[in-house]
């Protein structure tokens, strides 16, 4: 050990002194006033073709994160082409810029780089993480992937098989079956009712031409921006210009997704998994969009309800009743609306009891909590906020979110004071967003054991569905 020996001597005397005056353990130490979260400034540049660059310098680790963000995602998918944005993103690195899929992967892997491509509801991302010593050659590869994908037919077939097989595997994962069923039941025919990544039917029908057309329509500098975070300075901008400056100018239409209709009343979707050791319980509702003025109040409320260890859902279902290993809740905010869900995987024989407790907590959150509960929730949310900004990837994700959703420049720096200002009445008011009266309950479990007691709860019309109802017939993939 490098520093152990001299310090051992120094400490011996201190230890003797401390032993004579035992520390007062009668009350927990009181924290000092929180130190403010200071994020490095976002420096803005524009490349010759109009592509905006947002740069944040963080020099503690010699790594760089570069993300090209396209302001189009799964919400852009046309009717009958569900999964198109995701499939396009997925195929970007399967051959690009004159390299086939294997050569491209070899070049990226050799640099110790990670290139990831993905689509979410409202944007698509092509991201690079690499040691700064190898940033320059990696940028060329990133640009190849994002701007010059080939969408080779043979690779398309391979990737399609992989995606269809993943859908086949999902049939055996109770949590995934529940997730598909919940989205369908909450959103119905709305685009949000089907997964970002598409369905067996839609994936089977997609052709390479569809992906090429999507790329041609949406991958333009006028519909994109670059986020650069890490051990870099503005000296990186000429390198970005070299890699992305030749991308021809262009714009793209914005997605037009209607707001999803709120649910009226409650029903229970029961999906049989014979012999299951646990029942997967989900309660879902239509939730607010990312632009909601209630964002901070909702996050404090949800922290108290189900997003902390001491939250009411976890405390009730895990600590008080021992029904589950854990229980929680979350809001997913999107451009046109969102989803709220509460979740727990519970012991089969306690399914009905656990559901009763879950519904009780979703209802009770709309009545005023104690000031101590609200203080704990808002402190936990606000004072641990810095943990969301530890890695270059986390920071790049936050910057991307701010731009895509048009959040104010001070959104992150003002988050802590705004969250700390949320009080008991506001938490109770936005508790209505968790109201289980207008909701869908999904249960995936051993129907034979759990159905009688679930029906006896009268928690809503019971609809028994099969995995085939939710996921379609099993895909045939050879």
């Amino acid at each position, binding site marked *: 050990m490098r*520093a*152990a020996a001299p*310090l*051992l001597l120094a*400490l011996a005397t*201190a*230890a*003797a002194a*401390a032993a004579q005056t035992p*520390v007062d353990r009668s009350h*927990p*130490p009181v*924290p000092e006033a*929180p*130190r403010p*979260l200071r994020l490095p400034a976002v420096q803005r540049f524009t490349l010759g073709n109009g592509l905006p660059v947002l740069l944040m310098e*963080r020099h*503690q680790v010699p*790594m760089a994160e570069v993300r090209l963000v396209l302001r189009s995602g799964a919400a852009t998918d046309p009717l009958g082409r569900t999964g198109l944005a995701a499939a396009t993103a997925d195929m970007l690195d399967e051959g690009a810029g*004159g390299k086939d899929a*294997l*050569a491209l*992967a*070899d*070049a990226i*892997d*050799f*640099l110790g*780089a990670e290139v990831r491509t993905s689509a979410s509801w409202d944007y698509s991302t092509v991201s690079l*993480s690499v*040691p700064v*010593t*190898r940033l*320059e050659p990696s940028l060329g590869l990133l640009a190849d992937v994002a701007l010059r994908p080939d969408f080779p037919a043979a690779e398309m077939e*391979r990737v399609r098989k*992989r995606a269809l*097989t*993943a859908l086949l595997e999902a049939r*055996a994962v*109770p949590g995934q079956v529940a997730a598909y069923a919940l989205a369908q039941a909450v959103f119905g025919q709305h685009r949000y009712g089907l997964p970002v990544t598409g369905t067996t039917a839609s994936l089977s029908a997609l052709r390479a031409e569809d992906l090429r057309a999507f790329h041609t329509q949406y991958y333009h500098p006028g519909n994109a921006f670059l986020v650069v975070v890490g051990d870099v300075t503005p000296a990186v901008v000429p390198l970005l210009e070299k890699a992305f400056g030749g991308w021809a100018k262009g714009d793209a239409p914005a997605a037009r997704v209607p707001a999803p209709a709120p649910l009226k009343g409650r029903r229970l979707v029961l999906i049989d*998994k014979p012999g*299951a050791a*646990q029942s997967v319980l989900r309660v879902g509702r239509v939730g607010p969009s990312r632009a909601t003025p209630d964002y901070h109040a909702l996050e404090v409320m949800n922290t108290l309800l189900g997003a902390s260890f001491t939250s009411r859902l976890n405390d009730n279902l*895990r600590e008080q009743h021992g029904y*589950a*290993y854990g229980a929680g809740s979350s809001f997913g905010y999107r451009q046109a609306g969102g989803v709220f869900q509460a979740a727990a*995987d*519970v012991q089969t024989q306690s399914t009905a009891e656990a559901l009763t407790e879950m519904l009780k907590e979703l209802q009770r959150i709309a009545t005023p909590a104690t000031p101590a509960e609200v203080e*704990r*929730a808002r*402190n*936990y949310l606000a*004072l*641990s906020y*810095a*943990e969301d*900004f*530890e890695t*270059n*990837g986390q920071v790049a994700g936050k910057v991307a979110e701010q731009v895509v959703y048009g959040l104010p420049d001070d959104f992150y720096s003002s988050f802590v004071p705004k969250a700390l200002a949320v009080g008991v009445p506001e938490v109770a008011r936005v508790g209505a967003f968790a109201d289980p009266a207008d909701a869908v309950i999904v249960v995936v479990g051993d129907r034979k054991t759990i159905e009688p007691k679930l029906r006896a709860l009268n928690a809503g019309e019971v609809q028994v569905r099969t995995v085939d109802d939710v996921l379609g017939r099993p895909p045939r993939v050879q």
Partner: protein
Amino acid sequence: MSALPAVLVLMALQAAAAAGDGARPPLSVPYETFRLANGLTVIVHEDHTAPLVSVNTYYHVGSGRERPGRTGFAHLFEHLMFEGSKNVPEGAFDQWLEAAGGSNNGSTNGDRTNYWENAPAGALELPLFLESDRMGFLLDAMSPEKVNGQRDVVKNERRQSYENRPYGMADLAIPDALYPPDHPYHWPTIGSMEDLSAASYEDVVDFFKKWYGPANASVVIAGDVDTARARALAEKWFGAIPRSVPVEPLTPRPVVLAAEKRLLLEDQVELPRLYLAWPAPEHYAAGEAALIALGDILADGKNARLYRRLVYDLQVAQDVSAYVDSGALASTFNVVVTARTGHTLEEIRRLVDGEIDRVKREAPSVREMQRFQNQSEAEMLRGLERVGGFGGKADQLNQYYLYTGDPDYFEEELASYRALAPSDVRAAAQFYLGPGRVVVSVVPRGKQDLGVAVAAGGGK
């Protein structure tokens, strides 16, 4: 037409990579360490990037120390550590920490039990108070009721993580077949339902007294804190805990299997999955680095040998992974492959063995080695971006301390990868990936014919 430019690009990249490596300073996470009079090891690392601190505590006891009939106890005990101590009422550990903006978690494996608290820098004393109170005074607040409550939670964890998770039971079957009954890794950390039912309040008392003393623990304090202050606070909160009897570490006990053992499990799954597990040398022992490289060369990336052959070219598999599961006493080299519809695990096994035979004949290329080394370095750098939580710097310092005695082992680990020659990887494959291994087939119910045949009298 594209061949020539591709070659030129590759040469340029190699030059760039080599240049980067040449200029690279050694990787180091600076720290100071000292030992309190009661035997507690404290390690301090300053990182003032964000106003956060993490307190990371390792007790050098894991499921490997459990007695027969009490499997799963070290992990159950981990749960009980959050249920309050003499000066921390039940529930207050989490309530007080959250009210200060802190979070926490813990985990158990065969070798150790770890606990971490992340907190705003100004709240550092709170996790030190909480952690020291349970180190010094857990039993003052322990009760049979608490044991019963967490027993239920842990049984639910077992249901959620193994019984109700596709393929989950394979994780329980492999160590059972790979290690002899008296080996500390024979039983899974989660334990059996019967043993969890049998765990008693008296067991908790005995286990705490034997294993949870300061001389069998190490605490890392990392983040936005001054070293001298961290040292003074560690002394203040932990210093008065009575000295405990130091615990002798277990002697490494790598195993050898005389022959192949085959098992077949039916599960609620759509696709069959093959698990191959070979005995491997203990964590950071000679030979392990070459096996880690081998795992990467076999399965990490499109050009990795198994991925390329099974997933990319033949498309008979959905996914493949190959990795070392490392422990202080012994490790396991694993290959896991999920077959696509229409393909049997026997077909998969032959293909996997074909690639493993090939790497025994032909050493990896220099480029394959460099790719592994460059990726390892990048992965390690990514790990340095976080201070707290599982896998953050505080956790890594403690992990290195436990397994090597040197908290700042980052450069040494990388150096062990850089020192590898292609022939080392070939030799490791030849030496370790022999016939003595465990072969587990997990197949959909009623589809035993999709598994690797379990010969009559064979298997366990």
